[in-house]
C-alpha cells in the first residue's frame, strides 16, 4: 500500500517541484522514490498473501517480485535516459507523466478486481499516449501518439466489453470469484466471448499478432527514450497484469485457451522476426524484435502451473538488455540517424558504446551466458515436454532474430572512413546493466 502511495504521490510531487522551481531535484526525488519502492518490496519479500482495500489489491509474492522488477527497470531507464528527458526542457511534465504511468504499471501487478485492472491499464496507457506524442514538433511523434491513442482506446473498448461479458457470466469483478466461477463446471459461452475479448485487449497491449501492428509504428515514431519505456516498463506491466489475470483468475479456462495461445505465439514469432529481418531502420527493427519477445512472454502463460519465475526473469532480462540497446540507439539516433548505415563504424570512436550495444543485442538474441538466454531458457524448458513443436519454432525464429541483431553488430564493427561519433554518458550505469546481464545467471534462483 505504501508502495502504491509513493508511486501515486511521486507524480504529484514532481508537479509540485516544478511549481516551486526546483527542477533539479526531480531526478533525485524519482531515484529516491524508486529506491524506496525497491527497498519496500525487499522488506516485504517473504510476506504472505494479503488482500487489501476491500479486495481491490493484493500483496503477494508475485506482486512483490513484479513490482521490484518494474521498479528496477524504471530506475534503470531513468538513470540511462534522464539527460535526454531533461534536454527537452519539459522535464517536469514528462517526469510527471512517467510517474503516473509507473503508478499504473505497479497497479497492473497487484490488482484483484477488474475495475482496478481497467483503471491500471488506463493510468498506464494514457500518459504514454501523451509521451509517445511528446515531441510536439515532430510529425512522426505526432503520428505515433495518435495511432497509439486511437488503437489503444479501441482495444480498451474491446477489453471492456469482455470484462462486461465476464461480469455478466460470473456476476463479479473480483478475481477470486471469477476464478471460482470458471473453475466450477462448464464455462458459459458468454464467458468465452468475454475471454476472447479480454485476450484481444491484452494482445494489443503486449503487441502480439495479429494485434501487434501498432507497435512498430508507435515505437519508431515515439522519441527513443519513450520507446525504451514502452518496450520495457509498459510492456512488462501489461504482461504481468495479463499473467495474473490469465494464470490466476482464468485458470479454469487456460487448458482451452492454450491451443489458441500457441497459435498466436507461433504467428507472432514468424511475423515479427520476418518483418524485423527486412528493416533498415534500427529502431523499427527493435520494435519488431520487441514483438517477438512479447511472444516469448506470452509463452510463459502456457507453462503449466503458476510459477512467475519465468515471466519475471524474461521481463527483467529483456528489459535491461533493451534499455541498454535503446540508450545507445538514442545516442546514435540523435547524432547520425536511426538507419542501419548510421551505425557504421561506431566501434572505432566509441568502443564502449559499441560493446554495450553488442552485449545488449546478444542478450536479446539469447546468447549465453547473458540474461536473455536464461529468459528464453525458462520459457523453452517449461514448454519442451508439452509443446515441442512450438519450441522448435522458437528456436528457428531465434536464429532469424540473431540475424538482424547481427546486422547491427556488423555495422558497428565495420571499418569506415567516417565513423559515427556519439556522446558517451552513463558509462557507469550501462556498465552496471551489463554486469547485471551477466550476473543474472546467479540471480535467477532468487526470483
Amino acid at each position, binding site marked *: 500500500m505504501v508502495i502504491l502511495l509513493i508511486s501515486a504521490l511521486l507524480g504529484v510531487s514532481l508537479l509540485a517541484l516544478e511549481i516551486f522551481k526546483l527542477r533539479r531535484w526531480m531526478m533525485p526525488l524519482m531515484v529516491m522514490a524508486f529506491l524506496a519502492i525497491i527497498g519496500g518490496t525487499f522488506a516485504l519479500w517473504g510476506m504472505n498473501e494479503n488482500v487489501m482495500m476491500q479486495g481491490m489489491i493484493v500483496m503477494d509474492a508475485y506482486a512483490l517480485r513484479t513490482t521490484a522488477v518494474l521498479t528496477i527497470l524504471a530506475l534503470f531507464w531513468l538513470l540511462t535516459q534522464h539527460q535526454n528527458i531533461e534536454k527537452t526542457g519539459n522535464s517536469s511534465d514528462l517526469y510527471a507523466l512517467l510517474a503516473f504511468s509507473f503508478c499504473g504499471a505497479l497497479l497492473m501487478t497487484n490488482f484483484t478486481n477488474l475495475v482496478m485492472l481497467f483503471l491500471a491499464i488506463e493510468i498506464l496507457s494514457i500518459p504514454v499516449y501523451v509521451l509517445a506524442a511528446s515531441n510536439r514538433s515532430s510529425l512522426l511523434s505526432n503520428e505515433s501518439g495518435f*495511432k497509439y491513442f486511437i*488503437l489503444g482506446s479501441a482495444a480498451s473498448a474491446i477489453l471492456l466489453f469482455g470484462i462486461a461479458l465476464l461480469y455478466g457470466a460470473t456476476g463479479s469483478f473480483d478475481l477470486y470469484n471469477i476464478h471460482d466461477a470458471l473453475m466450477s463446471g462448464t464455462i458459459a459461452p458468454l464467458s468465452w466471448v468475454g475471454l476472447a475479448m479480454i*485476450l484481444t485487449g491484452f494482445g*494489443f497491449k503486449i503487441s502480439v499478432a495479429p494485434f501487434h501492428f501498432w507497435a512498430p509504428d508507435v515505437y519508431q515514431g515515439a522519441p527513443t527514450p519513450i520507446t525504451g519505456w514502452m518496450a520495457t516498463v509498459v510492456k512488462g506491466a501489461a504482461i504481468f497484469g495479463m499473467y495474473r489475470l490469465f494464470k490466476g483468475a482464468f485458470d479454469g479456462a487456460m487448458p482451452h485457451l492454450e*491451443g489458441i495461445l500457441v497459435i498466436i505465439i507461433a504467428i507472432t514469432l514468424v511475423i515479427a522476426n520476418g518483418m524485423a529481418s527486412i528493416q533498415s531502420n534500427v529502431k523499427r527493427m527493435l520494435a519488431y524484435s520487441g514483438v517477438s519477445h512479447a511472444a516469448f512472454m506470452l509463452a510463459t502463460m502456457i507453462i503449466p502451473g503458476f510459477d512467475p519465475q519465468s515471466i519475471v526473469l524474461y521481463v527483467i532480462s529483456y528489459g535491461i538488455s533493451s534499455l541498454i540497446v535503446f540508450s545507445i540507439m538514442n545516442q546514435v539516433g540523435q547524432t547520425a540517424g536511426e538507419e542501419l548505415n548510421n551505425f557504421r563504424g561506431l566501434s572505432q570512436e566509441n568502443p564502449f558504446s559499441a560493446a554495450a550495444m553488442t552485449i545488449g543485442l546478444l542478450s536479446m538474441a539469447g546468447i549465453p551466458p547473458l540474461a536473455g538466454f536464461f529468459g528464453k531458457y525458462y520459457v523453452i524448458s517449461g514448454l519442451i515436454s508439452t509443446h515441442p513443436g512450438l519450441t522448435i519454432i522458437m528456436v528457428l525464429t531465434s536464429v532469424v532474430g540473431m540475424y538482424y541483431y547481427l546486422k547491427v553488430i556488423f555495422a558497428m564493427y565495420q571499418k569506415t572512413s567516417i565513423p559515427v561519433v556519439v556522446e558517451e554518458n552513463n558509462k557507469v550505469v550501462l556498465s552496471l546493466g551489463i554486469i547485471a546481464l551477466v550476473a543474472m545467471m546467479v540471480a535467477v534462483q532468487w526470483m
Partner: protein
Amino acid sequence: MEKLVALIPLFPLLGFLYITFFGKNQSKGTAGAIATALVALSFVLAILVFTTQLHGAHATFVKVLDWIHVGSFQVDLSFVVDPLSSLYILFITGVGSLIHLYSIGYMHDDEGFHRFMSYLNLFVFFMLLLVLGDNLLLLFVGWEGVGVCSFMLIGFWYKDHANNDAAKKAFVMNRVGDLGLILGMSLIFVQCGSLNYNDLMIGGSAIGHLGKWATLGAVLLFIGAMGKSAQFPLHTWLPDAMAGPTPVSALIHAATMVTAGIYLVARFSDLFTISEGASQLVTWAGVITAVMGASIALTQNDIKKVLAYSTVSQLGFMFAALGMGAYTIAVFHVVTHAFFKALLFLGSGSVIHAMGGEQDIRRMGGLKSHMPTTYWTFLVGTIAIAGIFPFAGFFSKDQILAHAMENNTVVFALLMLAAAGTAFYMFRMFYLTFHGEFRGTHEQEHHLHESPKTMTIPLVVLAIASTVGGFMGFPHAIGHAMHIEHALDHFLSGSIELTHSHMSVATEIALALISMAIAGMMILFAYNIYIKKATPVLEDAEINSPLHRLLWKKYGMDELYDNLFRKPIDALSAGLYHWVEQKMLLGMVDGSGDAAKGIGRILQPLHNGQIVTYLLAIIVGLIALIFAL
C-alpha cells in the same frame, strides 16, 4: 638369442635417423658406408636368428613396446620370430645390404646421395617391421611404411613431374589394396577378437572364428596383397615405378617389397586353406598376371620396363602357387626371385650407368666386350629366370608348374605359356643389350666402361646366389627318391601350411625336361631373330600390327583406368562441388535466410501504416478468437 631380433630393424632406423639429421656433414663415402654397415649388421643378426630357427626353435615373440590397448583391442609393438619371418629377414637384409653397397657406386654422382641412402635404410626398417610384426597391425605399419618409402624413392628425382606422377600412382594404387587390408583386419578383429598371429594362427586358431566370413576376409587380405604385389588389376603402378633409381627397382620393386603380398598370404595360409573361393581367386589373379606380364614384356624396349613386367609376371607365378596351396613353393620362388631379379636389375643398372642414363635396348648392343662382369652376371640371371637347370629359377618355377599340373591343367598351360614367354623376352633383351653392334650415339660408345667395384661385387654375389640358391628346395619326388630333403619346405613347416605333392618321380622329371626344352626353344628362337637375323626392333611409330600394339600399349590398362576412375572421379568431384556444394547446399543455407526475409516482404504491405488496416486486423483477430473459443 631371439631377443636380438628387436635390434634388427633398429639398425636401419638408426641409419636413417643419423643420415637424415647428421649426415649432411659426412662425406658421401662415410654416409654410404654407415648405411650399408648398419644393414649388414642387421644381416649378421638375421643370420644368427635364422640359425636358431634352423635348429628348430619354437616361434618366439619379442615385445618391445605397448602400442594400442583399447578395451579388447590389444596390439603391441612386438616381433615374431619363426621360420617364415626369419627367412624373410634373412634375404631382406642380405639382398638389402648388397644393394646398399651397390648404391654407393651407382648413386655416387647424385646430389641427393645422402637422402637416397637414408631412404633405403628407412625402407629396410619398414620392410623388417612388416615381416617381423607379430600382428596384422604391425604388418600394416610396415606395409604402409614401405609404401611411403617406395613413394619417396620412385619420386626420388622429384624435379621431373613424370617421376612424381609415377610415385603418386604407386602410392594411390597401393592404397586401394591397403583399404582391402584395413577392411580385412577390421573383419578379422570383429569376428576373431584379435589381430595377433599368436591368437589367430600360431598359438591359437581364432582365425577359424571367421566362419562364413572366411572367404570375405581372405579376399580382403588378398586385395591388400594385390596392391602391394602388383597383381592384376592393380599391377599398373609397378612398371611406372621404374622411374626411380635402379637400386630402388632392385630392392623394392623386385626383391622385397613386392613380395610382401606373398608374405601376407603365406602368413595367413591357415585362412586361405579354409577358403576355397579365395584361393581360386588368388590362383586366377596370379595366372592372369603372369601371362599378361610376360606378354607385355615381349614388346617392351626399356630395359627396366622389361624387367618390371617380368617381375609382375613372376609375382603372378607366386600367387598362382599360393592359390593352389603351394605356400612353401611360393615363398621359395620369392627367395630365388629375389636373387636373380635383384641381380638382373642391378645388372641393368650397371648397363644404364655405363650408357649414361639410356634405358632403351634399341640403342644398345655389343656391350659384352665393354663390361664383362656385368655381362656374365647378367647372363646368370637371365638363365636363372628362364628356368634352366641348375640355376635357382629352375627349381622354384618348375615346382610351381608341377603343382599346377597336379591341380589344374588350364592353369598349368597358361603358366607354361608365361614361362615360355619369359625365356623369350629375357633373351631378347639380353641379346639386344649385349650382343650385336652398338646402336647408340658415338658419345655413349666412348663413355662405355665397366662399373666400379662397389657395383660389381653385389652382382657377383647375387650371381652366385642365383646359381646355387635353388638347391634349398629340391623337387619333392625327385628329392625323395634321391634322399635330398626339400630343405625349405621342412624349415617352413613351423610357420605355414605345407605343400602337398603326390607326383611321381617320372612325371616330375618329365615335366622338368619339358619345361627346360620349351625354354631352350625360346632361347633359340630369340637367338634366331636377334642374333642370326639381327632383325631390327621396330621404333615406336612403326608398331602397326594390332596385337603388337596392344601388347606394347600394355593392353591399354593405364588409359582404361584413366578413363574409368581418375577422370570420372575428378569430374564427379568438380560436379559435386559446383552443383551440390555451391549451388544446392550453400543455396539452401542462404535460401533459408531469404525465406525469413521473404516472409517479411510478403507481410510488409500489411503493415502499411494505415490505422484502418491495423484496426481491421484487430477485429479479424477478435472474430477469429471468438470462433476459436
